[in-house]
């Protein structure tokens, strides 16, 4: 039998949670491992259980579903459940998630769950052994994204924030570069200098600058200087 996908339900209304539980009963490949009624209760459970799927309400006391996602290190797949906030969910710019309108239609739920299963099967083989970050939820003003980290070419520290360079977008993340670095895949991300981390997959070329320092040219991106301290490490890791 296939592995069951662990699922967490977050909704402030007990009856709404019960209804979801009942509807999910039709889909035995999903296992409900926890329920929470607000952001504060949900946060530790999701971090501990690291579920594959989150069924998430938007309007909750003490913080919205978006607030919860922003605080999570582990970002599971998310299906929003909402009575009337579909426009809020539509605000997602890229890789939009699924959302279900309450009262939830069983057919719509089945379709959303099928998508989750498909995504999960595709993601699985790529997942590294180490629990490195795969995906980040980023909110910048009115816009939200789920950013796959392998598509991020450059991370630049801006005080207590980190600016991501992701295709054409430059979202700002509410974490420090140091805390983020600890969770990144070291095979892919390299600390170029005090302020910047580059994605090695995006390195197009390396030059020796006039100052004697290495300069890395990123695909569709700027040149990044490698600090003297990091230069040796960089040569080792890239075999240059």
């Amino acid at each position, binding site marked *: 039998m296939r592995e069951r996908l662990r699922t967490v339900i977050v909704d402030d209304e007990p*009856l*709404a949670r*019960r*209804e979801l539980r009942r509807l999910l009963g039709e889909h035995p490949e999903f296992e409900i491992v926890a329920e929470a009624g607000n952001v504060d209760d949900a946060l530790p459970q999701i971090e501990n259980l690291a579920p594959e799927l989150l069924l998430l309400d938007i309007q909750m*006391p*003490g913080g919205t579903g978006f607030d919860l996602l922003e605080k999570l290190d582990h970002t599971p797949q998310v299906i929003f459940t909402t*009575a*009337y906030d579909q426009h809020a969910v539509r605000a997602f710019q890229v890789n939009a998630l699924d959302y279900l309108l*309450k*009262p939830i239609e069983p057919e719509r739920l089945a379709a959303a769950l099928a998508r989750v299963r498909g995504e999960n099967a595709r993601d699985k083989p790529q997942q590294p052994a180490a629990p490195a970050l795969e995906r980040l939820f980023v909110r910048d003003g009115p816009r939200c994204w789920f950013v796959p980290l392998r598509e991020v070419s450059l991370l630049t520290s801006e005080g207590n924030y980190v600016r991501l360079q992701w295709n054409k977008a430059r979202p700002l993340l509410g974490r420090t570069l140091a805390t983020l670095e600890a969770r990144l895949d070291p095979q892919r991300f390299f600390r170029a200098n005090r302020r910047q981390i580059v994605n090695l997959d995006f390195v197009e070329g390396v030059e020796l600058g006039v100052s004697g320092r290495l300069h890395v040219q990123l695909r569709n991106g700027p040149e990044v200087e490698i600090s003297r301290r990091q230069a040796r490490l960089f040569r080792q890791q890239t075999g240059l």
Partner: protein
Amino acid sequence: MSKNRNYWLLQLGGWGALAAAQWYAATFYLKLEPLRVAVEVVVLNGAAVLLTHLLRAYMRAKRWDTLRAGPLAPRIGVASLIVGVPLGVLNHFLSISALREPSEELNGFEVSTPWDLAHEGFNWTLTIVLWCVVYFVILSGRRRREAELRQSELARALHAAELRALKSQLNPHFLFNALNTVRALIAIDPARAQKAVTQLSRTLRYTLSPDQEDQLVSLDQELEIVDDYLALESLRLDERLRIERNISEDARAVRIPVMLLQTVVENAIKHGIAQLKDGGVLHIDARIEKPGLILEIRNPRPVSVPPATGKGEGVGLRNSAERLRLLFGSAAQLHLDLDEPGGALMRIVIPSKSIAELA
């Protein structure tokens, strides 16, 4: 401004026309000396302008405009006599007094019989009565137009309030969450689900039905609908919503604007209790005190949220306050107190005088 201008136009125009007629008649029919007649009619009608203007000031000071026809008529009679007789005497000593009986020979400066004097005084008293009648007819016409304007303003404000109430009542969040609750209940407690459908229907019907044009309902009627609404929200929020009601019996019959309490309770839940993880107690108090009916709705709210958040809320509150003022006058109050960091207190006062009038 324009009221005053109209007054002067009529006042000067009316007396001016009379003066012109007198001058024309005295000059062309009696063949009196035009210049002398001109001076006389200016003096006479000028005095009339002055005296009637003083009369107007007196009537305004004494608020005669608030009197009914019964008490007004004798007052006008006396006032006209007081103003008319001096004008009659003045007229009597002018050469144009010959206008009264043009066939007689001119004897302008001779003192004639007391009968003639009385006749002049009577004529002028009658003229002033006429002046007063015109004055009050114009005034009452204006009053009626103003009342109509106020009425239509009230109707418009009510309409807006109803619309907004309707919108907030048909808050899609509430509606769809309630439907979701019903869906959940159908599986686990069909009897409760049936009850919930009834309550939801009643809530919707109360807001949608057109038979609410009478604008006022008894507090008891409004409470019934608030109860239906609260029952639905209790299903949804479960133990997070706790309700404490304290309604004194004598308050139940008082008539209040329809949807007023419902709107306030809805806000208390939406912005207060539903925002709190552990919910809280919603207090609904109604009692009769010295100033009148006191309605108090108290609820906890998140401390972090700064008071007076959304622009829409401020408008809603202002609308309700405006509606109260139009229906009950300036003694009616609606005040939202957010001074306490973790709480909100809505206080509505409907003055006893208005309660008595509407009973």
